[in-house]
């Protein structure tokens, strides 16, 4: 992936075209349909995003069929897709799998895998979080095998292949397995987020291809990009929720006035706005960081995630509070966002975890 080179105006145009597209193909009614079907994929929206708008391949070099863009452009796409709570595997496939493969720095894997990801014809996900015990690997004359389990694997139910971060005898490696491989079991979880199903994936000696060599430093970078990506989603959702709350505050009348005239509501909306603007500044800044500056990337990613993971849930909760009872119903959109916000809060470390890592960077703790 490259450093972003587009101008702010170009990114604004890109955002406008995405918003137009998503408001057509992924209105809330469509999201609810897809959720109810439990497929976990809005195929039309994904096809449009991936092929027509080139979003799946944003981070992939042009030689592999991608757009050759960077995180600043992908942040726009993530914000907009999350704003529309689109039921698509953009984070899992377009960001995490795409970046993991490139970080592994394996020329033949790039050539083999990136083109399918770039046009969205293949969906992949990355199994990162150990689901109890360490995920390990063994190697014999037939090649590598993976053992263990991974939890909270995003969109595992629709991925054709799964990238697995697992320990090796000498360190950490990135491995590719087929989702239908023998010994691999995908158990859907009762996920909080209804728009992005997670699964427990267990590996009982699953045949795997190793990609690149030692992956531990790359894993740090992958986590940093993951933090920036979910922060962009948190920004997109927070902005939308704030707009919904402000609109409701303008129109809902109680005690003879629109409730937005009451300071308790007005100030809550103003604080939402301040948090959204802060998230916008933070995501905008982090997405523009030089991807090869590992120290700067790490720090900015922790800062932006620590901020967004703390305040996006606040915005989502405040939105429900502004709405009163109606915000607590299944029919209102607030909970769809709240569920995804709380999930993004946890992915790649919650605010407390990110702050702890910042303390280490700052010399506040050993």
């Amino acid at each position, binding site marked *: 992936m490259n450093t972003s080179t587009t101008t702010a105006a170009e990114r604004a145009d890109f955002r406008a075209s995405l918003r137009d597209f998503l408001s057509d193909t992924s209105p809330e009614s469509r999201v609810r349909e897809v959720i109810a079907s439990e497929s976990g994929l809005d195929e039309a929206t994904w096809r449009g995003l991936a092929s027509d708008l080139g979003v799946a391949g944003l981070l992939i070099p042009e030689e592999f069929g991608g757009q050759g863009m960077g995180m600043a452009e992908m942040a726009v796409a993530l914000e907009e897709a999350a704003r529309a709570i689109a039921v698509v595997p953009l984070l899992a496939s377009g960001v995490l799998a795409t970046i993991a493969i490139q970080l592994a720095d394996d020329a033949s894997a790039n050539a083999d895998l990136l083109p399918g990801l770039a046009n969205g014809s293949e969906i992949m996900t990355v199994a990162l979080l150990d689901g109890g015990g360490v995920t390990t690997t063994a190697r014999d004359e037939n090649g590598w095998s993976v053992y263990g389990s991974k939890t909270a694997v995003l969109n595992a139910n629709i991925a054709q292949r799964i990238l697995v971060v697992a320990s090796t005898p000498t360190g950490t490696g990135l491995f590719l397995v087929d989702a239908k491989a023998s010994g691999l079991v995908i158990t859907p979880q009762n996920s909080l987020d209804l728009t992005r199903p997670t699964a427990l994936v267990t590996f009982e000696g699953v045949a795997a291809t190793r990609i690149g060599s030692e992956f531990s430093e790359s894993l740090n970078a992958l986590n940093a990009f993951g933090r920036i990506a979910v922060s962009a989603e948190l920004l997109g959702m927070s902005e939308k929720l704030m707009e919904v709350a402000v609109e409701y505050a303008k129109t809902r009348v109680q005690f003879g006035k629109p409730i937005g005239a009451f300071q308790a509501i007005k100030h809550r909306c103003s604080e939402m706005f301040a948090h959204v603007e802060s998230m916008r500044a933070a995501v905008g800044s982090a997405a523009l960081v030089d991807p090869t500056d590992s120290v700067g990337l790490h720090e900015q990613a922790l800062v932006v995630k620590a901020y967004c993971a703390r305040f996006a849930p606040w915005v989502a909760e405040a939105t429900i509070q502004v709405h009163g009872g109606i915000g607590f119903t299944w029919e209102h959109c607030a909970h769809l966002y709240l569920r995804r916000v709380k999930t993004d809060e946890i992915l790649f470390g*919650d605010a407390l975890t990110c702050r702890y890592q910042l303390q280490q960077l700052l010399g506040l703790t050993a």
Partner: protein
Amino acid sequence: MEALLAELREFLTKEFPAWRAKWQDSDTWEAKLDWQRTMAGGRWTTATWPEEFGGRGLGTMEMLAIEDVVAQYGAPQIPGMIGVKNVAPTLMRFGNEEQRKSVARIANTDEFWCQGFSEPGAGSDLASLRTRAVIDGDDFVINGQKVWTSNGMYATHMQLLARTDIDAPKHKGISAIVVPINTPGLEVRPIKQINGGAEFAEVFFTDVRVPVANLIGPLNEGWNVTMTTLGHERAGVAVFAGRLEQRIRNLIEDVSKKDTPVSPVLSDGLAEHYVESRVLGMMGRQMLAKIADGVAPGSESSVIKMVWSELSQRVDTTVMELAGVDGITGDDNAAKSGYLTARSATIAAGTSDIVKNIIGDRVLGLPRD
């Protein structure tokens, strides 16, 4: 008190295993109704009712002790709480002879009551309700809509608040009326909540006719009738305070038993919850002691409601934080559904904003907006 609790223990030791044997692990509505009938048979659900209505005439402190013992046995809460705690006392005080016959039926679940208070246009602003009841001959003709009606899906009767004089100021011109749920023109629809449950309903009234004799208390005095009922609900917050205190003790005990210690920051957060819940519990006990001494509680109930709702919501957020990844995968489903459910703590029964207005206006005497 000791004799009372001994009697209760004897009762529970006999009846609770029998009920369990009959219903096994069933969590059904019928099983819960049967438990309420069993408890009512021993005059335990109605212990605070006057003896003339089949109660024991006990005070709030005794009721609290009874609830503690029941909880120790692991018995479920009775489903008809609203009828027993809110509607029945209202009917005892304001009901006519016919209406008072419902009191005994409420206890043993022959009748199951809900209260039709909130409306779509009047969530926190109860006094601006618009459902109308017009007298036409010997009947009220009712049109309008109620929302957030607890137990609306199960009720046989509703204690309705409707506007009977549209020219009177907001708090005036409202009447309380008995409406059987099976009256033609009345439709009940469940409200699905963000946690997936449906404990509330919307109720629609289209030319619903009930006799004028169904009026509870005087015409246009429904506000006072209602406030009496809500008054009972308010005293209940002290019980909630004690339960929250115990819940945090249990949570801390669970955390302290874990193999891997939690972060010092989360641990401090738990201690913070502990401090606040201990103080809340002290406030609750002092309020109950006042009631037991025959002193009418003042502003305490509003303060306890405000502190309780914000603290209990924060506790559920902490539980979700402690669950971490298990919370978002649903592997810790209790954390997940507790977190979602808790969003209503600062909304239901008067938002925190409204409670703060009430304290500011009525307790501190600040100018109204």
